[in-house]
């Protein structure tokens, strides 16, 4: 059952991939409907398998399926095996479930695209890799998924590769992920060095020496910052919005970016050993949550707002992990998957309805035009704000609570997260208000042409809306995965504080953008982080590369040229003696003879 779960998307990938390649070669087109159906079917089947597999998990423990021996060398042997337990089960359900819906949505969304077959192939590839990531029984296999989703992400961000910007965004994502992957790689080496194995079951239990433990945790977390777009490696995610919107929903909101949380949760026994490491994780998480929330307030592009929001929400999750509340983190992953996917898909629906318009200052008054979108978006909006009883309320509340009360929590952490929550409410409401209310700020023609999305797009919206509304009540199974952090009864105080915080943010935003004439705000990269990075890393790499080039041309090639020149020169210098006069030769020979015979006789006597 587990095996079939990952084989379905693989099959979808192979079929769609081969088909689209073949037709590309012959210059024919792949039917988006057919290929979309294949892909969606594969995902639905995988979802079914995930549900069935879920049922098979014993109360405590896991199911393991050994597929084959991947590689072995000396004392190391790495099997390709799948391991399903409560934690991975949640992720598989989210991946396949949300994934299936987004596939369905895409069938309609990508109808016009020439390369839809390729698109679905990539999407299936992504799901296959993502499932590998969460089901992998060994670290290399997790790494396979880890890099695999990065690849899929690269391909999908740069899906419309004729635009240089898209390609650049994809490359940025891939490379920043690779920086993180380096951490993963080295963490694996450390794990292997100390546990003698790369099996998750072994590595999980390994006790690392203090310093090594911290570096292990930090390296793993470096991997997470790459994949889950945390400080300092978050800047790729907003750019990743260059991809088709369903991709943003699936990969860059619901699933891939949360794999960092999965990894931390998966390795929680090792992670928890290092207090320093945990503190760093919590601190970075909270800082990311705050900083990106601030940036989100200054965005105009609907998808960028959501992207920064995603980063911010991921910050919440990491803050939770950092204080030891892995369960809360994973819980938020789930609820976030529901509402953020919903928000993205709804945004996609808006963009689709407005034929590609993404600037929220050129929207407005779409409530009537796009009713289904509006209502489902409302559910997502409520969920992210944490209004009860929407799903986000439960998970966010849990995180805030843990940040305050857990052993490694503190008032500071709580305060930062709370401000982030206020800002979240602000920017989401700003978005909500500007898109759906007020007067339309676009051409009348465009407004008139705005239309609600077709059923295949609306259906996932509705389903996800329902999940955003009700998903919070599924908290219990999440915590089964991490019994040590059982759901604590939320204290009323924190609940009220968090709701009030959301209310404050929302009110400010509503007030501010209620005026009839909304003044367009310029987009602002508040902290200029991207610019600094491109100066620092782009420039730095450039400098180092230039230095190498200089070294190569001047020193390495220069040395070769110098050897050649010196050889030639000394040859010519010796040649100078060849003056052509026999008597001069005789003289030189006699000089040599005198010198040599002198030393010879001196040596002899």
């Amino acid at each position, binding site marked *: 059952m587990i095996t079939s779960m990952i084989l379905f998307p693989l099959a979808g990938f192979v079929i769609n991939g081969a088909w689209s390649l073949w037709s590309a070669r012959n210059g024919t087109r792949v039917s988006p409907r057919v290929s979309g159906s294949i892909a969606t079917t594969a995902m639905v089947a995988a979802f079914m398998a995930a549900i069935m597999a879920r049922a098979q998990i014993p109360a405590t423990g896991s199911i393991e399926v050994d597929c084959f021996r991947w590689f072995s060398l000396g004392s190391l042997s790495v099997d390709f095996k799948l391991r399903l337990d409560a934690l991975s089960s949640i992720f598989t359900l989210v991946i396949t479930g949300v994934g299936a819906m987004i596939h369905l949505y895409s069938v309609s969304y990508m109808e016009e695209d020439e390369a839809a077959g390729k698109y679905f192939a990539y999407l299936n590839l992504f799901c296959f890799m993502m499932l590998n990531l969460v089901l992998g029984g060994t670290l290399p296999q997790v790494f396979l998924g880890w890099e695999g989703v990065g690849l899929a992400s690269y391909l999908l961000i740069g899906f419309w590769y004729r635009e240089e910007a898209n390609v650049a965004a994809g490359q940025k994502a891939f490379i920043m992920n690779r920086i993180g992957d380096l951490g993963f790689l080295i963490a694996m080496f450390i794990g292997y060095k100390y546990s003698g194995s790369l099996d998750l079951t072994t590595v999980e239990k390994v006790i690392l020496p203090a310093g090594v433990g911290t570096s292990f945790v930090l390296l793993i977390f470096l991997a997470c910052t790459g994949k889950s777009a945390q400080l300092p490696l978050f800047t790729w995610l907003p750019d990743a919005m260059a991809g088709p919107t369903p991709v943003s929903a699936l990969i860059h909101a619901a699933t891939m970016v949360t794999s960092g949380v999965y990894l931390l949760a998966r390795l929680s026994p090792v992670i928890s050993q290092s207090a320093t490491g945990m503190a760093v994780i919590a601190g970075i998480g909270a800082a990311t949550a705050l900083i990106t929330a601030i940036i989100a307030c200054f965005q105009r592009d609907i998808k960028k707002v959501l992207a920064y929001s995603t980063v911010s929400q991921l910050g919440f999750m990491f803050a939770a992990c950092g204080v030891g509340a892995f369960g809360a983190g994973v819980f938020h992953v789930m609820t976030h998957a529901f509402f953020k996917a919903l928000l993205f898909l709804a945004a996609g629906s808006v963009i689709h309805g407005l034929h590609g318009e993404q600037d929220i200052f050129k929207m407005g008054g779409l409530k009537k035009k796009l009713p289904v979108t509006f209502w489902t978006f409302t559910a997502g909006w409520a969920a992210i704000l944490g209004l009860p009883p929407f799903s986000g309320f439960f998970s966010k509340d849990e995180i805030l609570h843990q940040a305050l009360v857990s052993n490694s929590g503190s008032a500071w952490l709580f305060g930062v997260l709370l401000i982030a929550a206020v800002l979240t409410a602000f920017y989401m409401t700003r978005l909500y208000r500007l898109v759906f209310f007020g007067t339309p700020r676009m051409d009348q023609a465009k407004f008139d042409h705005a239309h609600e999305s077709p059923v295949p797009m609306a259906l996932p919206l509705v389903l996800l809306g329902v999940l955003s509304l009700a998903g919070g009540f599924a908290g219990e199974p999440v915590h089964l995965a991490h019994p040590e952090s059982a759901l604590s009864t939320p204290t009323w105080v924190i609940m009220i504080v968090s709701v009030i915080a959301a209310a404050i943010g929302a009110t400010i935003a509503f007030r501010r953008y209620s005026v009839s004439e909304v003044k367009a705000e310029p987009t602002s990269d508040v902290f200029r982080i991207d610019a600094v990075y491109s100066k620092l890393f782009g420039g730095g790499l450039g400098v180092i590369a230039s230095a190498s080039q200089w070294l190569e041309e001047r020193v390495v090639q220069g040395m070769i040229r110098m050897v050649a020149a010196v*050889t*030639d020169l*000394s*040859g*010519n210098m*010796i*040649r100078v*003696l*060849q003056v*052509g006069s*026999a*008597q*001069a*030769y*005789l003289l*030189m*020979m006699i000089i*040599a*003879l005198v010198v*040599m*015979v002198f*030393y*010879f*006789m001196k*040596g*002899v*006597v």
Partner: protein
Amino acid sequence: MHMNEIIQTLMPWLILAAGILVTLLVSVIRVESKRPAQFSALLTLVLTGVSALQTVSLPGEAIFSGSIEISSLTRILLALFSLIGVLFVVGADRYLSKEKIHLSDYYHLLLIMILGAGIMVAAKDLVVLFIALEVMSLPAYTLAGFRRNDSRSNEAAIKYFVLGGAVGAVFLLGSAFLFGATGSTQFPAIYSWSRQSVTGSNLLFAAGHFLVIVAFLFKVAAAPFHFWKPDVYEGAPTPVTGLMSTLVAVASFVTLVRLIHLPALDSTGWEVYAASIKTTIRVLAVASLVVGSLVIITQKNLKRLFAYSSISQSGYLMLGVLASLQPGHGIAPVLIYLFGYVFAAVGLFVLLSQSEPRGDTGVELVDLTGLVRRSPLRTALWSVLLFSMAGMPFTVGFFTKYFIFISSVGSGETPLVVLAAMCAVVSAYAYLRPIGLMVMRDADPGAAQWGGGFWSQLVVVVSVILVVFLGLMPNAMIQYLKGIPLIH
């Protein structure tokens, strides 16, 4: 010893001597044609070679009161000289006609030269050695000036003669000193004197020994006694250059080795002396290698290029000499090197003589451009021979260097071997550049035409076959030459 036995022992030399007279006679009888002299010379050389090879395994014998010693070394060398002679009689035919200097004198002088060389390597007396040296040299000077109407040929001959004369005097002075020090000019007497002499610190002996060695250092053009070589090579007619580079070089080098081994260097009291000799040879080796390989890459004229090549060959050979000074090491590395070098050099110089005349400037690198399209076979022949010169594997040049290097490493001269190896790399450039020009470049408009003629091409092919065959199957040659002792 009975006269019969002497004749028996000396048979190859006697055949050669008789052949010289016969050749002189036939060319006097039939003045209008060169063919009888050519044929007679060829026959003489073949008979000499065969006769030398036939008796090659006989034990060595000193005859004429120890004036010369006929041994397997001298016989095999005489056979080699005869082979060189045959190849240059056959191979030079077309060149001589082309240059309009086809005189029967070429064959006379060639034969006398070979006789001188054959006796020089057998001489056991410094005076015999000197006379034989002159017997070899006088025809060599003359042949260098054989293109009598060409001032370059004159120049080469006179330079060769003046320097050769001076060096002959130096040799003679050295012999006089040795005579003064030991009371004899005979090798065995000098050798046994050194055994009995308590110390090697006899200044007269040292000076004399050094002077006779220097004379032959000049002959083999070991730097810094090499200056004459490029000029003479360039000016002399190409087959004569070939003769100098093979016949004269081999005879001189063997003699040089014998002269170095004149005293018993391993006797007690001679340690310092032996060490000084070794240092001197090291210096010479380094100088020859460096000069040869650094200057060779600047050369554009092929004859000069091969002159510097032979200077660096002297450097490698010096390594072999050093190894031969080590107790228990023979001169096999030197002999093998010389044989291998000769086989390639004969082919190279005959090939070089195949260019059509383009003034009196000799063959330049540019004449080789694009040869592969004009004459693929000739390109292949060139390539194999140049590969051998560069010491590339599967040619005899590899094994000759191999043997020199490994015996030097065995005698603890590794730093010198490393230097020699680096020089081999540098000079490899000079050897491969002609190949590059032949294969990779289009023909220059000024490039010379090439035309061989059957016989000279045959000589080259023979040389190439020898080079390749010995490059693949050197065992017999090595085995044979290894067994040959140096005569003292």
